[in-house]
Every structure is written in structure tokens, then in C-alpha cells.
């Protein structure tokens, strides 16, 4: 028992059970936790660390270039992003220590993970990049694509001894023609996963970030390759009167 306790203290002191982003983002608070370890080392660290916010950026990582779409070169499209998430907003999940805090995935008390960049704009930008790579021309004169971000979350899963972050991105994509008439609306949701650095922590900033980046890339790809979305973008183009 004593050996296990000492090993845990040593592990915390060595930093090997801290999430990577916690070290980067909350050094002072963790240092505070270390200071009270004489009497209750591990729980002290957890309590002191409460209130730490892990901030992550979630950029758009395009992955492999998409195939060109026949006939896209003549079509103009504009993409805008809107935030339709609930009150949780930029807070996408929680980091906590499962073993020491006696809690698990989904608990509300822990280290909130907050996305620092404008995620709706990032999704819209990613879709714009992908459409451009497919051959479309970004211009305000053609189809208007509105990407509404309705969900961005990271949940934490335990699968046997594996602990991983399960990032989810969901959007409603609308396509309007030049006159503002709604031509298309569809919901897309994808998941991305990333293994955690430690099974002691429900997740860490790195795995949360990577899972969301993967989910974001999958969402953009799901939209861009959807034949119904493609058809809507083309049918929403202004046509010369005959």
C-alpha cells in the first residue's frame, strides 16, 4: 500500500500522469498542488488543479486533396459559418482524473476543455478550401452555403485498458440560391478518436484536440462528397435567361 502511494506521488511529481496541455497551460496551479503533497499528495494536486482550463485550438487539417468535380470550374460558391451550439458553446468537454477523483467520462467537475479558435468559421473555411480544391470558385455570386455548427464535443471512453477521446462534430449545411431561396439542408455528424497519453486521466488536451481535428476533417469531407450537396450547389447557380 505504502509502495503504491509513493509510486503515485513519484508519478505525479515526475509529471507523467499530467495531461500534456495541463503542464503547458496550468503549470502554476499544478505547482500549487505539488506543494501540499506532504499530507495528501495526490488529492491535493487534483483539488489545486480544479479550475484549470485546458485551451486547445482546432485547426482545419485537410488531409489528402479531394478529387476534382467535373463542371465545378464554372460554378461560384460562398461559404459562411454560424454557431448554433447550445449554452456550452466553446467548452467541448472535461478532463479529469478517473482514478483519483473517483469520477469518469461525462462528469462535470474537472478541467474544462475550451476551443480557442472560431470553430464555426474554421468549419466554413475548411469546406471553402475543399470546394476550391474540387474546382469551385469562391465568389458571392453563386450558391450560398451556410454551415451551422450544432455540436462540437469530446467524450472520453474506456475500452478495456485503452482510454481515448471521442470527438464529435455535427453541422447542418444549407444551400441557398442567389435570391436566398433555400434549396438544400442536411445534417452531418462524424467522429474522430485519439488515444490518451495516460489511462489515469479521462483524456488530455492533446487527444481532445486530435479527436476534434479528425472529426472536423471527416465532417468537411462528408459534406463535400455528398452527391446531393453537390447537386444543390450546382442547381443554386444563377443561370442566364434563355
Amino acid at each position, binding site marked *: 500500500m505504502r509502495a503504491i502511494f509513493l509510486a503515485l506521488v513519484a508519478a505525479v511529481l515526475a509529471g507523467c500522469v499530467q495531461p500534456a496541455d495541463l503542464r503547458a497551460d496550468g503549470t502554476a496551479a499544478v505547482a500549487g498542488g505539488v506543494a501540499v503533497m506532504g499530507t495528501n499528495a495526490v488529492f491535493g494536486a487534483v483539488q489545486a488543479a480544479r479550475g484549470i482550463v485546458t485551451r486547445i485550438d482546432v485547426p482545419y487539417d485537410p488531409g489528402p486533396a479531394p478529387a476534382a468535380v467535373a463542371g465545378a470550374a464554372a460554378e461560384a460558391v460562398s461559404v459562411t459559418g454560424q454557431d448554433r451550439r447550445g449554452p456550452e458553446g466553446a467548452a467541448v468537454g472535461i478532463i479529469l482524473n*478517473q482514478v483519483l477523483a473517483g469520477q*469518469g467520462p*461525462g*462528469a*462535470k467537475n474537472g478541467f474544462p476543455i475550451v476551443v480557442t479558435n472560431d470553430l464555426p468559421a474554421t468549419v466554413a473555411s475548411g469546406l471553402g478550401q475543399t470546394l476550391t480544391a474540387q474546382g469551385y470558385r469562391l465568389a458571392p455570386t453563386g450558391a450560398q452555403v451556410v454551415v451551422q455548427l*450544432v455540436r462540437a464535443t469530446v467524450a472520453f471512453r474506456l475500452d478495456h485498458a485503452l482510454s481515448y477521446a471521442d470527438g464529435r462534430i*455535427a453541422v447542418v449545411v444549407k444551400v441557398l440560391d442567389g435570391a436566398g431561396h433555400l434549396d438544400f*439542408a442536411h*445534417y452531418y455528424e*462524424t467522429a474522430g478518436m485519439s488515444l490518451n497519453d495516460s489511462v489515469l486521466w479521462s483524456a488530455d488536451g492533446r487527444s481532445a484536440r486530435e479527436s476534434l481535428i479528425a472529426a472536423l476533417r471527416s465532417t468537411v469531407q462528408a459534406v463535400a462528397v455528398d452527391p446531393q450537396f453537390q447537386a444543390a450547389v450546382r442547381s443554386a447557380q444563377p443561370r442566364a435567361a434563355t
Partner: protein
Amino acid sequence: MRRAFILIALPALAVLAGCATDFAIPYTAAAPPPPVAGAAARSVAVVASDGRPLDRDRIGELDGGHGEEVAPLHATNDIAATIAAAFEQELTGQGYLDGPGGARVSVEIVRFDSRFLPLPETPVPGTLGVTEAHVAVLVKVRNQTGALVFARYYAATPGGPLFSRPASGAVAQQALAAALRNAVALVIGDPQFQTALLQG
């Protein structure tokens, strides 16, 4: 020794006592909807579909209190059919005629799930928590010509905390039923949705 017994036995008893994992999620209307002016002359046809791309089979999971999944939760009724019936009930209550020839409403279920959130500040960690539920739908309205005239995403929760011990399928059922009721009320009460129906 006594503390160890409590730590092990209480969560185990909680799991065993509330372990129903398959149950129906009924729709129960909050109150009869007020009639809508002009609705009596309009027909509305409702279709619901399940658009959940992930985890479609499960509506939550029983939690042993420490984040570990004990068992998945499943609905025994057809959720899409339940939602379609709920919309038909509410819209006819508002005075619309149920049937073809007018606006066509499609309701796509995109979230229908619950989860248990343990509260840490309890004498025995993991023995008490809050069950939350999420119901989200994408509602589209097409007019008589088939043109899409309205599309909106709605998300609803039970509206208040539902405290429970871990692994209570009954509370998950209650939370989801409340979230479903609130989701339907959100849509039905949306003036822009009503405008789309009346113009359909």
C-alpha cells in the same frame, strides 16, 4: 473495512436495483396546443426518419457511477414513429388537417441520447448524479410543389436536473421523455415553422 464495504456494495446494489436497459420512450404532451388561425384550411403531412449516423442503436448507457459503462440502453419503441405521431397529434391539435395536399414536414432525428453525470461531492463517490438527455431534430418543410421552404435544427434537454443514483434506466427514460416533449414543443411553438406551414 466498513468503508470498503460501502464503497463496493452501494454502487453494486444501485446497479442491480435499477438495471432495466430496454424500455419505451413514450410521447406525452405537456398541454393541449392553442389553435392556430388559418390552420383549419391547411393540410400537413408528417414524415419522421432516423438520421443518427452514429450510435443509432443505443440511447444511452448505464453507468456504474465511476464512468464505466455497465450496459447500453435501448429503446423498445420505434423512435421515428413515436416522433411522427407526436407531431401529428400536436398539429391536428392546432387545427391542421392531417394528410397530403399541403405542406410536407420531415423530422430527422439527429440526437436521442442520455448520460449519467456523477456528482463528486457525495459521501460515497459515484452514488449520486444527474441524468441528462439530448433530443435534437432537423425539421424541414416543403410546400405543395416540393420546394424546400424551411429547415431548422432544434435541440432540447429535460429542462431541469434529474438526480438519481447511478445506473437508473428509469431516470434515463424519464429524462428522454421530457427532452422529447420539449423538442416537440420547441418546433410547434416556433412562429417561423408555423409560417412555413401556413404558406405551404
